[in-house]
């Protein structure tokens, strides 16, 4: 640390010495921020504005954009039934995540609790699907959802118990549920992990005090644990909502948005117009809609998180 030779410097310092020191420090701040700022402005901020610009054009991507169409792209998107299916699917996925996946993850976190023998083992296994790539997860589910009971395990089980094989990914009614099952398989472990951390942050004494005061397990959970988990629940909701809006890879691999657009999401819709049909202006307008949707949810989230968390005491 070379502490000793450094000490005399302090005594040598004259009143004017601060200025070059300050300059050095500013230079360091500038150089430290520079790489992050360049990459961020060029690849995250600038694209937002360039896609706003292109969204006013009918542009196929060759040469400069000249065919100005005003708000036509935005209007046409809202008039497209397929886009509306994508919006409906996003909200369906959000609803399913919030009312099925989130309670399931929370229940499992509570079951594992603080001191169940083997809790780390269960956590490790339940979290494994989250770490696998979406490509691998999607292909695994593509295999087990095969409509032929001799190839798809899910139908084999149903037939074994005397039911009828279902076409899952081939049925406009079932496809979204089937995809949701795959998504839950992949992501419940992550939410469970969040809840396990949240539960661990609740002081044991608070729950024990509830028991001493005569609360049964249900009362203890609903009136003590649940309110104290509020901030974890908000985080989990936020991640689910944003994830549902931008769902792409699992859907693209399992169904390409089909059959007959039944599993279309906004991201698959954008990808189709942007990268398959090369209607870049139209695709940009879709991206702007998605961005606005995320922005609105984020602002609502920020507004909600301003409320103080009961465990953090004073904000």
């Amino acid at each position: 640390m070379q502490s000793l030779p450094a000490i005399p410097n302090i005594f040598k310092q004259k009143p004017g010495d601060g200025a070059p020191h300050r300059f050095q420090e500013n230079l360091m701040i500038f150089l430290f921020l520079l790489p992050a700022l360049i990459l961020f402005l060029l690849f995250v901020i600038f694209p937002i504005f360039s896609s706003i610009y292109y969204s006013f054009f009918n542009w196929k991507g060759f040469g400069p954009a000249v065919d100005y169409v005003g708000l036509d792209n935005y209007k046409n998107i809202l008039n497209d039934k397929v886009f509306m299916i994508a919006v409906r699917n996003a909200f369906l996925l959000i609803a399913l995540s919030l009312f099925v996946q989130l309670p399931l993850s929370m229940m499992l976190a509570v079951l594992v609790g603080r001191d169940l023998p083997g809790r780390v083992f269960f956590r490790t296994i339940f979290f494994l699907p989250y770490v696998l790539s979406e490509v691998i997860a999607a292909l695994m589910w593509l295999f087990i959802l095969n409509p032929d009971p001799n190839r798809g395990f899910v139908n084999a089980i149903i037939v074994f118990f005397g039911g009828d094989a279902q076409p899952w990914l081939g049925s406009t009614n079932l496809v979204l549920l089937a995809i949701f099952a795959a998504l839950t398989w992949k992501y419940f472990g992550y939410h469970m992990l969040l809840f396990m951390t949240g539960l661990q942050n609740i002081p044991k004494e608070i729950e024990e005090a509830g028991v001493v005061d005569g609360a049964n397990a249900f009362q203890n959970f609903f009136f003590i644990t649940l309110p104290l988990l509020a901030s974890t629940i908000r985080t989990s909701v936020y991640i689910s909502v944003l994830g549902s809006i931008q769902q792409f890879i699992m859907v693209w691999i399992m169904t390409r948005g089909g059959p007959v657009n039944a599993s279309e999401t906004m991201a698959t819709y954008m990808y189709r117009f942007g990268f398959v049909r090369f209607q870049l202006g139209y695709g940009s307008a879709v991206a702007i809609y998605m961005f606005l949707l995320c922005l609105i949810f984020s602002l609502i989230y920020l507004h909600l998180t301003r409320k103080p968390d009961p465990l953090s005491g004073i904000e």
Partner: protein
Amino acid sequence: MQKTTPHRSSWNTRKIFQRFLQYFVLVTVLVAVFVPITILVFGALKTRGELMTSPYTVPMPPRWENIIAVLTSPSYTFWAMLRNSLMVMLATTTGVVVICSLAAFVFARMRFRMKGAIFQLFTLGLMFPITIAILPVYFVLRQLNPYVPLIDSLWGVIIVQIAFQLSGNILILRGFFTAIPTELQDAAYIDGCTAFDFFWRILLPLAKPALAAVAALTMIMSWNDLLVPLVIINSDKLWTLPLGTMQFQGQYGQDLALVSAFVAISALPTVIFYLIAERQIVSGLTAGAIKG
């Protein structure tokens, strides 16, 4: 004493019943998690014919033909994909750790004008995930292409991956850096350290667990990413593992045993890495979620 004994034993039976219920639910979920994985591994270890006639039995004896075929056939180029994925992952992770720790240090420990505003700008990135941004980002890459060829290049994948990891990881690291006591910084300055000395010799070594968490998370993200390579890479020589896996399934989809073998092998590095770095991944994720 005698009065409490019966009460105690009834408490114990209740406790045992409760434990039984807990394990019953957890094991059921465990089985559900393992079903798709098991079916895949079974498929990978059977011949095509075996998979047709007895799809759900344990592969006894295991057949390694498909695995060997995937690993050795020159037309599948598994090793090339593995190399591409490794290169992208290492470059992206190095870039993210270096760039984010520099920026996070400045935000956590230095005072300057516009600090709040610049930091807010970075947090804006959290609301603009790559899936939504991919088309606009593609425009930028195309505009840059005459000067810096990033399309159909692994560098393009690396740069875009880094750019979209900045917001989250700067936030995580800033949290960790802020938690290191100010007294340490004061002591270092009194000892004649410059701000850079403090950053390089004191803060970074202390923040190793945080850096490891960020690195582990970035590695997983980069390794699993399909969208960015899908949009940027055209030539099959440059396919990464997820992109190659998807293309392989498209090409050989009829041969389920072969595809299963390919998918299983391409999942193996992630599983091994996860078992080694679980602690870092978990701590990075929980820190990220709580700060974010």
